[in-house]
């Protein structure tokens, strides 16, 4: 019937013959260029297992936020409050876990995490109601949120720094023990690869049944590409040893959290009606409404999702720092939005991908870390990062064949 492969069309992005998103691929290319450049400038440090491990951990918070921000931006909204919400939720978790609940209770950290996520959802719903039901522009609402929740973060503990957290909770931060270890990392890799392979086979069989011309070779090549990249990633994480030992660390927990978020969000945006509605609203909200899409409810849900992701990011951040401070998360909104936009989300709505946002976050963090590795001062760093961001997006534009 058609000779194209059957890819989820909702993202409305050009895909190449193998069904990969062209834009994301060209971004990955740029990331590689940046990494290799820093590798040479830093005398071989950048692509060391250790730095890559750090990079993954450091990226996770911004990447988690960027995933949610992509949804927000696709619906033609913006969320300036994410840094403040993260800070506020982090402080509430810290206060509960350290000051209110008994410190040695086993239920303490799970309960506080649950409360934190609930609080995040609530804050997201608050923003969502203002935006979707009251019709106040998201810029204004979330600017209000930026102020309100930063103020609240201070009020929670009167500006005090709260520490230390439960040792199990701290694993979320990817500290010295916060990684899976070598064996479990490979096991996880194997499980995911098997599931992925099975999924592809099932989809393929279904497509054959409906008479679509879906080439096996394309699918196989794609599977192999994913397999090799994932294996390389696991091997790298495993080859970074714990201090003064030869025990490999394996996949860090924050990366695991990010991975779960990404898989879930990719699933939602590609395969569910909710994801489809998000793109339809961004493309033409009036058309979406005329076709009976519950536009307001959908936007509300998007902001709730953003709130939950802020809470998850808050867990990772506070666990990593092993302290709750009222300034946690300041200015993160800029990084999160930048990651989403670099990853291809368009502020005029209707366009963006989760994978792109993650790559965008990796690019930003690579620049940050790389500049420190080569010993640049903070003002030089700012100038260089600013320039590279602009050039990267420009290069991406031409590489991906837009215009």
């Amino acid at each position: 019937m058609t000779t194209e492969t059957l890819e989820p069309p909702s993202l409305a992005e050009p895909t190449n013959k193998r069904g990969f998103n062209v834009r994301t691929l060209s971004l990955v290319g740029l990331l590689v260029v940046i990494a290799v450049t820093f590798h040479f400038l830093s005398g071989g440090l950048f692509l060391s297992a250790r730095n890559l491990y750090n990079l993954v951990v450091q990226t996770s918070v911004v990447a988690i936020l960027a995933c949610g921000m992509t949804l927000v931006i696709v619906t033609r909204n913006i969320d300036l409050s994410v840094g403040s919400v993260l800070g506020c939720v982090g402080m509430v978790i810290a206060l509960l876990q350290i000051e209110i609940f008994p410190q040695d209770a086993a239920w303490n950290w799970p309960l506080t995490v649950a409360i934190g996520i609930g609080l995040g959802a609530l804050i997201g719903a608050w923003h969502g109601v203002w935006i979707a039901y009251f019709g106040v522009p998201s810029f204004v609402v979330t600017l209000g949120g930026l102020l309100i929740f930063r103020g609240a973060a201070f009020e929670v503990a009167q500006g005090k720094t709260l520490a230390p957290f439960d040792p199990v909770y701290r694993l979320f931060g990817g500290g010295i023990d916060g990684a899976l270890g070598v064996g479990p990392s490979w096991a996880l890799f194997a499980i995911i690869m098997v599931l992925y392979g099975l999924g592809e086979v099932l989809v393929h069989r279904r497509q054959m049944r409906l008479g679509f011309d879906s080439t096996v070779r394309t699918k196989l090549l794609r599977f192999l590409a994913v397999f090799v990249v994932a294996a390389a990633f696991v091997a790298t994480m495993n080859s970074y040893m714990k201090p003064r030992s030869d025990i490999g660390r394996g996949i860090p927990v924050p990366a695991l959290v990010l991975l779960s978020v990404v898989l879930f969000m990719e699933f939602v945006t590609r395969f569910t009606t909710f994801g489809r509605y998000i793109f339809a609203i961004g493309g033409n909200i009036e058309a979406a409404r005329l076709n009976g899409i519950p536009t307001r409810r959908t936007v509300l849900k998007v902001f709730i999702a953003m709130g939950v992701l802020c809470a998850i990011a808050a867990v990772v951040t506070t666990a990593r720092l092993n302290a709750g401070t009222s300034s946690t998360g300041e200015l993160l909104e800029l990084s999160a939005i930048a990651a989403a936009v670099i990853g291809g989300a368009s502020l005029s709505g209707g366009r963006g991908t989760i994978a792109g946002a993650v790559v965008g976050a990796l690019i930003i963090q690579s620049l940050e870390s790389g500049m420190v590795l080569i010993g640049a001062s903070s003002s030089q760093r700012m100038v260089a990062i600013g320039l590279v961001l602009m050039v990267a997006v420009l290069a991406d534009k031409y590489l991906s064949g837009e215009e």
Partner: protein
Amino acid sequence: MKPLIEMRGVSKAFGGVHAVEDVDVDLYPGEVVAVLGHNGAGKSTLMKMLAGAYRRDTGTVLVDGNPAELSSPAEAFDLGIETIHQTLALADNLDASANLFLGREIAWRVGPFKIMDSAQMRDHAAKVINQLNPRFTNLNTPCRDLSGGQRQTIAIARAIHFEARVLIMDEPTAALGPHETAMVGELIRELKAKGIGIFLISHDMHDVFDLADRLVVMKNGQVVGSAKKDDVTQDEVLGMIILGKCPPNAEPGPGARVSQ
């Protein structure tokens, strides 16, 4: 026979503009009612109220004899009212099959999520669209890159795919080629035979006299008059549209010019 739709005293104003004023219209099963009028007469506004896209200011609408609120497009769909909007209502960033099933995707419910069956939707979409325009092959192209007629084809395909009982067609063939237009004419006859009621807005007198059973003419938001197709001539209808003059065989409405 009981009418499918009865609109009574329906009005709508935008600021100072009385787009629709005190309109009464009926639609029976298996009937095609053409709604005619000059540009800006209020035809689209009237139909949008029936489609749940605008809320009416006053008046009642009965569907199958039951009063209907029609406060949202979803409510209209539930009552079996499908619409081809003049603006087409397509999301430009999505492709043909995504637009065709927009809001009513084929999906399996899994927990809180509905997982779309893209393959199935693609398959259906290809079939419906092919029925209207066999040359339409770029099913994977986002709508913004389609030609005017291709876009209109998607909007028509959408409205006929979800078996409606009432179909509102707001200038459905404006951008279509002669062959495509003929196919839509064919389609209207088929649907009519199935007992579906159709409101057809069109400026093409040919089409109207070819397809419609009854005509309603609007002018400046009011009904000039309505008539069986066979009771009036093309020239009389033009007189209704342009001059607001209601011929003797037609039933005059509040917008008819009283004196000559």
